[in-house]
């Protein structure tokens, strides 16, 4: 495995192509992710055979706009944080902080910054009404009602 070439996660996920976005559901963590066009392109292109400069070059053709490699690194950094990559090359952004890199890339780039929205899918019990029961009423195994929401018995009632 070439650790300089990023590789997107392919096992245990559900993928849904959307116009200009990509939805990924991770079956192992029950987390859902929505990738914007930039992140989605980087993820889809990360097939383990292309290094960063090749991905940047492909993105330039696709988006018809110059692409700084830092944009690709930002995307990979975010994708790796969300555990959507099996291989992510190391990069330290030339010792700049992530915030500084974002600022620098954001100022220079016409292409949208990479964004990955995420959430943990709810269980059925947590997704529903607490049927008007009083606070503290048990609504499931280790779950109690709190202001109409079924929540963990150990969490404070907000």
């Amino acid at each position, binding site marked *: 495995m070439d650790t300089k070439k990023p590789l997107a996660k392919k096992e245990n996920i*559900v993928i*849904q192509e*959307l*116009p*200009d*976005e*990509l*939805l990924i*559901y991770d*079956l192992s963590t*029950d987390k*859902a992710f*929505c*990738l*914007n066009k930039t992140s989605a392109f980087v993820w889809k292109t990360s097939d383990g055979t292309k290094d960063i400069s090749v991905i940047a070059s492909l993105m330039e053709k696709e988006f018809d706009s110059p692409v700084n490699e830092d944009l690709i690194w930002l995307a990979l950094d975010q994708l790796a944080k969300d555990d959507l990559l099996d291989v992510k090359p190391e990069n330290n952004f030339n010792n700049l902080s992530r915030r500084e890199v974002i600022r620098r890339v954001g100022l220079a780039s016409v292409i949208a910054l990479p964004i990955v*929205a995420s*959430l943990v*899918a*709810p*269980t*059925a*019990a947590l*997704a*529903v*009404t*607490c*049927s*008007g*029961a009083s606070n503290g*009423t*048990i*609504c*499931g*195994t280790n779950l109690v009602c709190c*202001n*109409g*929401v079924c929540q963990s018995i150990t969490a404070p009632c907000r």
Partner: protein
Amino acid sequence: MEITQSDRVEQEILKKLNLIEWKAQINFEAYGTRVGIRSNCVKTIENFKVILPEILPAGWNDLGKTAPDYLFSIVREDNHSKKDALYKNDEVILEEFSIEESWAFIKSQIRITVAEFSEEYVFLHAGVVGWKGRAVIMPGKSFAGKTTLVSEFVKRGADYYSDDLTVIDKNGYVHPFPKKLSIRGILENNEQVDFEVEELGGSRGLDPIPVGALILTEYKKHKKPEFSRCSVGHGIMKSIENSLSVRQSPKFVINVLNKITKDAIILESSRREAKEFVDFFLKLLDDSCL
């Protein structure tokens, strides 16, 4: 194969349940989910037969003696003794409670089970009405104001589909789930009071309809409505947040959510009063021919 502590607990529960003399049972299928309810008390099951239309207002199919996939066992002690117990298959749901005080919870458990394990429909925690032949879906958790919004739509002539559960088939069509509207704010302790939609001057939707709009909104006291259009991805993520069965059937749920958001308008806005919000939204629809 190693037996875990959890396996042992389940085995103990099954052993205990097998020793009980079950006096009555009903088995039914709804939305493709097969559920049974049994009890050592005949009256309990008779009560369930009476309230089943409330739990599943769009109906169910009697399974007779066919074994269900999800079996609720209600073990009764004396009335009001707080020694009743509720199990689902080999799992304890509630112990040492009084069924007379917990009907709402048990009804909710049955409904959740039907919704969670349906492989033919997607259930969202969302209010939904029909407007000019298309569904307007409003996802939201408890206390989000779904019933209030639905009531305002219904008063303006929308067809009532549900104030709490939106049911969507595999083709992306919304089906009626016309439970009574559960309205808060009438009683001092903020408990819900149930009304038939006709009591509010409204009418029910009868046919499955395609989705026209998904409205993402939350109450913000001093912020007037200001709609912004959202992406399909954002709409699907918000729907997943309010889905009852995404963990059980993620591929199916996401596929259906994609179908409903593909051609629908997805709008986000805060709101103050429900009346103002619904008026604003309907005017927006009329003005823009959306």
